[in-house]
């Protein structure tokens, strides 16, 4: 162990060429399991994220079967689900548990840990020209806390009383009272413990990302020369660091209410034939605390993909990103605003209507920086020379999904319109497009794009195309019709709507959505096969297969611990010198000095050192 530590320290802190010993002395355990190398940790997060995405997708397929075919019997699920299927019928409480766990898993375990964990870890040191994260040890802890949280959450799926079932937002009193729903028993306890550990993991990771970005940029890499990916990961980490502790406090108070008889969120309750002694608490307080995290959380999910998509689009359009500073400015604006819009989730929660008008104003402002980002992406495509790699297709589709899901936010952010649409399928459609599908597409773009750097091999393009087209078409087939149901008032989290005449329309449409949802779930097998096959048997990658400018492509095909075998690269220019007039090639990497590119330099461009 001690010798490993010594070589690690050399790697991380010294800029000498002293690397001939860095692959010695590493056992399998320290290299692949308890690794402190950011690239290995990134892959650990990626594999865990893929695992959770499969689980989350399976759960959604199960409840889509129920919603699409409410009259059908599902006896064939009995071997899988046991007593949750009674006479071929899904148990309604189990249905709620499925919805709850689908939301929790997708939002936190896949699109937060799987996305930020993978790409922040992988790209921050590589794109900044650092040998590793500021603290490799904390980084390792971050993954293993996440792993622990995952184990507990996974275990809760197999409890006899079922996992948590009160919705992913776990509003008390429902989540506080096992008398009200069985999932609020042990399942909810495990949910809270798992989330507490998850938050610890996020904070450890976030501190590391921020410190690394601030302190460990290589020579010449000023903040205004950083790739947009790094800006987005940096702001995501700041959001997480400020928002997650608030969720932690909410979870803690909920634990107190559940287990120690306090009344933070409970008041005047009579349930299961018994009046409870709790008095003076406010369920709305929990909602404020939850959404103070919950809203920044949706930006924690989508911001990293802003960065990834910007990077992929600019590389494959062979054009500088349009309005680099405006892109950073809009991300800053979105980050700040994301903290002061949370109560738009609560327009009809009974809070003061005046608060509603303030939050409507702030919410609609956030549309402006979002619109700027879309226009800038479009301007980047304009007069480009576009190479449609699978990553690029996913990025173009990302922009489409982001627009389609984003514009309906303008409707939902309007408190007067939200009266009718709150907690209907309109909301479901909105956030599944704008933060569900879009974030998934950004993540796919990232995986296809950086796979060569991660595994030294290329993914198969043709399979990537098949995967892309099925996924893109199905994303719209699933979520567009949901808007119609939402306008008609279909409430969320309903086991079936057949009890209401008002909601008995759209039976065929629900079946259609379910078929598309299950089809797209199976289409992911193309991706899984491609991913695992290519790790072992894919075409060998070159150092810079996409002809990209950022520093990670200046490393060897399989970068070792410490990333660069020689001295760290020095940065002379911004990362977007694509198709610069006068340059022989259509890209100039960041580590090429201006003195070597006399033919293409603009008047003000000369080396600063």
């Amino acid at each position: 162990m001690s010798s490993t530590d010594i070589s690690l320290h050399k790697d991380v802190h010294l800029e000498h060429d002293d690397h001939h010993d860095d692959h010695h002395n590493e056992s399998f355990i320290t290299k692949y399991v308890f690794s402190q190398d950011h690239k290995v940790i990134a892959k650990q997060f990626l594999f865990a994220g893929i695992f959770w995405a499969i689980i989350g997708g399976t759960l959604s397929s199960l409840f889509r079967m129920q919603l699409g075919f409410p009259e059908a019997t599902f006896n064939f699920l009995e071997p899988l689900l046991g007593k949750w299927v009674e006479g071929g019928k899904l148990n309604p409480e189990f249905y709620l548990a499925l919805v709850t766990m689908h939301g929790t898993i997708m939002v936190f375990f896949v699109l937060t840990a799987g996305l930020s964990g993978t790409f922040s870890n992988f790209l921050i040191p590589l794109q900044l020209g650092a040998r590793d994260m500021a603290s490799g040890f904390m980084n390792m802890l971050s993954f293993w806390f996440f792993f622990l949280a995952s184990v507990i959450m996974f275990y809760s799926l197999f409890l006899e009383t079922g996992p948590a079932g009160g919705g992913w937002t776990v509003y008390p009193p429902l989540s506080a009272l096992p008398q009200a729903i069985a999932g609020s028993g042990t399942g909810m306890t495990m949910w809270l413990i798992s989330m507490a550990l998850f938050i610890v993991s996020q904070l450890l990771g976030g501190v590391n990302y921020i410190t690394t970005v601030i302190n460990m940029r290589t020579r010449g890499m000023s903040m205004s020369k950083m790739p947009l990916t790094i800006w987005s990961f940096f702001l995501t980490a700041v959001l997480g660091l400020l928002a997650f502790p608030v969720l932690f406090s909410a979870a803690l108070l909920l634990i107190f209410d559940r287990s120690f008889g306090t009344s933070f969120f409970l008041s005047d309750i009579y349930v299961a034939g018994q009046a409870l002694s709790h008095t003076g608490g406010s369920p709305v307080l929990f909602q404020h605390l939850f959404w103070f995290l919950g809203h920044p959380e949706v930006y924690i999910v989508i911001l990293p993909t802003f960065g990834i998509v910007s990077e992929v689009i600019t590389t494959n359009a062979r054009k500088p990103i349009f309005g680099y500073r405006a892109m950073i400015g809009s991300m800053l604006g979105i980050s700040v605003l994301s903290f002061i819009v949370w109560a738009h989730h609560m327009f009809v929660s009974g809070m003061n209507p005046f608060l509603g008008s303030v939050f409507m104003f702030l919410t609609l402002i956030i549309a402006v920086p979002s619109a700027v980002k879309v226009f800038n992406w479009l301007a980047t495509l304009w007069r480009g020379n576009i190479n449609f790699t699978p990553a690029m297709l996913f990025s173009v589709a990302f922009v489409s999904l982001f627009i389609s899901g984003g514009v309906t936010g303008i409707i939902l952010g309007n408190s007067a319109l939200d009266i009718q649409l709150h907690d209907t399928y309109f909301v479901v459609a909105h956030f599944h497009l704008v933060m569900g599908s879009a974030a998934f597409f950004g993540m796919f773009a990232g995986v296809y794009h950086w796979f060569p750097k991660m595994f030294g091999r290329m993914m198969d393009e043709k399979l990537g195309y098949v995967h892309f087209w099925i996924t893109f078409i199905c994303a719209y087939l699933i979520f567009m019709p949901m808007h119609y149901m939402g306008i008609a008032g279909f409430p969320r989290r309903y086991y079936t709507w057949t009890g209401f005449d008002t909601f008995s329309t759209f039976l065929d449409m629900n079946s259609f959505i379910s078929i598309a949802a299950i089809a797209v779930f199976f289409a992911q097998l193309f991706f899984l096969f491609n991913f695992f096959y290519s790790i072992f048997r894919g075409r060998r990658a070159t150092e810079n297969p996409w002809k990209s400018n950022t520093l990670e492509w200046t490393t060897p095909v399989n970068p070792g611990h410490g990333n660069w075998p020689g001295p760290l690269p020095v940065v002379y220019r911004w990362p977007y010198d694509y198709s610069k007039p006068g340059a022989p090639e259509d890209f100039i990497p960041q580590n090429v000095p201006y003195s070597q590119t006399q033919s293409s330099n603009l008047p003000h461009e000369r080396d600063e050192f």
Partner: protein
Amino acid sequence: MITIAVALSIILLLVTLYLLFRIQILASIFKGSYRRDVGKSNKVNAVLLLVFFFVMGGLFIWSFMDAKEDMILPNASVHGIDIDQMFWLTMAVIGIVFVITHILLFVYSYKYQHQDGKRAYFYPHNNKIEIIWTVIPAVVMALLVFSGWKTWAKITSPAPQDAVVVEIMGKQFNWLTRYPGADNKLGVVKHTLITAENEFGIDLTDQNSADDFPGEPSAFHVPKGTPVLLKIRSRDVIHSVFLPHFRVKMDAVPGMPTSFWFIPTKTTAEMQTETGNPDFQYELACTEVCGRGHFAMKTILVVDEPEEYKKWVEAQSKKTFATTLQGGGSDSAAVAVNSEAGAASLATKQ
């Protein structure tokens, strides 16, 4: 046997697919296209994007038109007209943005696909354009915020004095209603007094309770054309009152009474004629997840002509909580006297 056959055929299918995949790779290596940076598939994908735009755009328009009938619920309240108007106005605004940006996205993708020997246009920024497309959305948003504010302020303003008051309480898993009776005051309730009979937890020692009466278990009535103030409560977990035809929604929160007022404009009978559905009923749904029976937590709201409503109140007000809970002890005249006295002495209680 069948399971084994199915499993075997799936395995065979997968093996075939895998072999096809390998053959395709070998063929492309042989052809030399395997290592080319930008191959034929670039053009195919660019065309597919354009096809996607037209086909999916067409499907969207068709399905939207097709679903329009079912999508737009008939509206039966005064403020609902404002909400609907603003909804469709906002839909038009975002529809324009949606269409323009998508045309640009897909047309640019097709038009600027890779061509050998071509070079992209180096165009890193243009401050003027960026300011323009920041200001325009900001102005549009400001207009939308302003109209939203006006409507929201109107809807959430205090209910008129003459509003008909109905209390609606959510519990797992049904809705209960309570009317304030002749004194127009609801009596005090305490969750500690709740029993199987006294589901509201009504404190009968409060004079205001004396003339309070329940709505029918399956339905409650309100008059057309008068403001109706719903006083909303919950006794266990959070529920949410949703009256889709009236554009009404408000959470029912334990320990924190909420309210929502609206003016119904069409009676149930009128709506039955309008929709051509003789069985039409105004349904009230729960829209905040509340447990196993969430999806079935429904009650009916009946909107009557004012005269019919008066008749219904007359009949229903004989079934006061006081009589049912105390086994029909006091006669209605005494109740009226009591309640007037109570109104004077306990005016602060709601």
